[in-house]
């Protein structure tokens, strides 16, 4: 069989972590190949090696049967390899043309850029591959879908034959995903090779010809897509059968604990993000929020947790309104990004365990921090939540992701607030840590807390939630009972295809 890419026995370590461990990876020319695996399985590392960003510690790379060394991205580009990164590598203040030609500029003898010629080339490319975009527009004015087109045009402009796309879909609307898949099929029919990194198995089934599954730095299997199923892939990815539903013991109470009334809020860019939104969560209830990234769910959470001022409406917790008061609302908040938001990585475990609680009378007076109380608090929580290693004065940076999340959960749940907001609480965690997070949330549900859960993982939402609200463009499109719905149905609502009441 003729492979256009053949990576053999690739190993790569980062400090203690074996990101890739003897990986064999091959793709045929003219196919769409899916590379799947959980976060941290080593997909991105492997592709960064193929794109010349990282050098493998061991192993070799063959392109069209020829041994190659890819020391830099420039080298990879010269072999016709192109990559669209998960976070777009675009420069917002430059135009589409400038972004596309950067590093590969057409210039006159003196180094002047011939922009009209470049624009013409780009227009031709965008016609040929049906990727409409205005070459003179500034990238910051484009929608996410359009920006992705610019990224693809960047590759085509460099005559890329092998296109690597790192998780291209989470930021897209369903229509945009459909268009993207059209484009990819188009590429295939023109003989180009596409590698799609994803962990959405439905996409794998929908578009790929073959698939490689990775787990913990190793390749588990490589199969043709037609000869496998979504369930089997899921099993291979996580290493055990996925349990889809959990049995919830007690029904929610009828008393609403968290009430959001007519809240509107703006995004950081001063665009309306939440529009006149109302919801209520009872004690002992988990309300899930399903939405594609950027539909106002982050802003809604910020309003409820007191981090963002709404332009209208109010948040009521246990009958008390929390917008006018200067005090932060009594909400346990498990934020989206551990290292960025939830923790001060260079603080010790003890210090992190009082972040946001440090103003409580227990822990500090106006001119004093009660260090003994801080330490005894840490000692207790480390034990209860089994944080490892149990060393109070260790900097949190040195903990594993799962234990870092435990620090956050320990701190937030020990507030004993009536409302819990969990935003992507399991992102990037291994299976055991995920289990820990899920059981913690379910336990708090039994304790009568009102829980708001935002997750892009629909399986997780279906497993944990009592009801699921679907947000689209800042509004709640519908609220459904979790046990009466499916991923597919949620998907339809998330796209905004069906409006409320329709």
């Amino acid at each position, binding site marked *: 069989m003729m492979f256009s890419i053949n990576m053999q026995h690739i190993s790569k370590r980062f400090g203690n972590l074996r990101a890739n461990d003897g990986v064999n990876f091959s793709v045929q020319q003219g196919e769409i190949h899916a590379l799947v695996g959980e976060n941290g399985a080593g997909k991105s590392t492997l592709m960064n090696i193929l794109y010349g960003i990282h050098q493998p510690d061991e192993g070799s790379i063959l392109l069209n049967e020829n041994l190659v060394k890819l020391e830099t991205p420039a080298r990879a580009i010269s072999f016709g390899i192109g990559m669209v990164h998960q976070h777009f590598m675009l420069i917002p203040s430059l135009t589409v043309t400038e972004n596309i030609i950067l590093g590969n500029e057409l210039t006159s003898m003196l180094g002047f850029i011939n922009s009209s010629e470049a624009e013409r080339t780009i227009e031709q490319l965008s016609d040929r591959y049906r990727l409409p975009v205005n070459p003179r527009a500034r990238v910051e004015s484009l929608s996410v879908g359009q920006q992705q087109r610019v990224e693809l045009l960047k590759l085509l402009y460099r005559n890329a034959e092998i296109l690597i796309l790192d998780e291209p879909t989470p930021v897209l609307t369903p229509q945009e995903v459909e268009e993207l898949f059209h484009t990819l099929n188009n590429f295939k029919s023109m003989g180009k090779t596409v590698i799609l990194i994803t962990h959405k198995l439905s996409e794998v089934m929908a578009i790929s010809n073959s698939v490689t599954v990775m787990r913990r730095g190793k390749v588990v299997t490589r199969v043709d897509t037609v000869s496998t199923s979504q369930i089997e892939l899921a099993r291979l990815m996580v290493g055990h059968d996925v349990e889809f539903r959990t049995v919830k013991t007690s029904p929610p109470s009828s008393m609403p604990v968290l009430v959001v009334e007519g809240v509107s809020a703006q995004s950081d860019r001063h665009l309306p993000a939440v529009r006149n939104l109302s919801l209520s969560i009872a004690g002992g209830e988990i309300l899930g929020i399903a939405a594609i990234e950027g539909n106002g769910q982050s802003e809604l959470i910020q309003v409820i947790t007191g981090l963002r001022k709404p332009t209208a409406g109010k948040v009521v917790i246990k009958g008390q309104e929390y917008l006018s008061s200067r005090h932060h609302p009594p909400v346990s908040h498990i934020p989206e990004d551990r290292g960025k938001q939830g923790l001060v*990585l260079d603080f010790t475990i003890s*210090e992190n365990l009082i972040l946001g609680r440090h103003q409580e009378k227990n822990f500090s007076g106006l*001119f004093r921090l009660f260090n003994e109380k801080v330490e005894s608090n840490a000692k207790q929580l480390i034990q209860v939540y089994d944080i490892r290693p149990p060393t109070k004065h260790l900097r949190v940076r040195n903990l594993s992701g799962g234990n870092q999340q435990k620090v956050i959960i320990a701190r937030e749940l020990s507030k004993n607030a009536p409302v819990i907001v969990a935003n992507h609480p399991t992102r990037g965690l291994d299976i055991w840590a995920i289990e820990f997070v899920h059981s913690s949330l379910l336990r708090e549900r039994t304790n009568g807390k009102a829980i708001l859960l935002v997750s892009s993982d629909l399986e997780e939402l279906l497993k944990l939630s009592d009801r699921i609200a679907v947000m689209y463009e800042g509004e709640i499109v519908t609220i459904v009972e979790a046990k009466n719905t499916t991923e597919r149905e949620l998907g339809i609502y998330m796209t905004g295809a069906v409006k409320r009441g329709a």
Partner: protein
Amino acid sequence: MLALLLSFIIGGVFILLIGKDPFVVYAMFFSQTMGSWYGIGQVLFKATPLIFTGLSAAISFRAGLFNIGAEGQLIIGSFLVAMVGCTFSSLPSFLLIPCALLAGALGGALWGAIPGFLKAKFGAHEVINTIMMNFVAAGVISYLVTNVYSVPATVHTPQITASAELLRLDVFASAFHGSPVNVSLFIALAACGGVYYLLWRTRFGYELRAIGLNPIAAEYGGISIARRTVLTLALAGALAGLVGGNFVLGYKHYYELGFSEGIGFIGIAVALLARNHPIGIVLASIFFGILEYGSLTINTMVPKELSNILQAIVILFMITLTKFLSRWTTHLQECIVQDSNV
């Protein structure tokens, strides 16, 4: 330590370049600074203002802010110290001295709070604004001193009242005789203790450090970054403003244009060398004090500007060596880990 050693070696090369024997020069340098109580007194006198500006820089660094404005803050502060010292001549010492210092601290605090406010309210970067405030301070004070308050034909203000003067240490310890080291050294040491307590024993210190290490997490933890930013820079300004105690109340007994000679900037070096720790700041200040006074003592052999060169080289080595060493050690650790895995 390595940085200090390397700087002295390079300094030695400079000395060689002008045809002098570096060993002779350095021998004189050290015997003059550390070989007598008088020399030690001079060094401590030079170190005192550096402790204040070092603390000023360090407290801002801890909060993730860059205060290049200590120079302007200490100019304003010291001027006010002198003004209070010569205006309220009827007050007794125990009231007048605290009042003068308070005025200095408040002036410095105001000068620090303005860039703090501009940062908190409008997101204007404090590096540029504190630099600009330095020039504005220098301009305003030079106008006031030359045109309004000067003793004719000089560039300094009138003498402060005798009751505002801070005692020299040679009053208690005659060994220091003749050196200008004075009671403000103890004020500086007290300020170090205060900053230490503030950073690690108070709520505000906890919040300040959280903001410096991760502002997003701090905000998530209910800390108002805007307010803390203003307060931190005001505090940094107040510390810088206290410099006037040493020069005005303790030494010359008047405010003189251009007395600061870059103390504010060297404070940044002190903070870097001390890794923003109050105790380290005392040591680093003494080191820079030795450099400053020592290069004065060897002026007959080598131009005294050697001290500026040495200071700059110490800073450059500090910022590059720490980077370099940390990269090297992590690399070494990785190697060890890999070996043990094989």
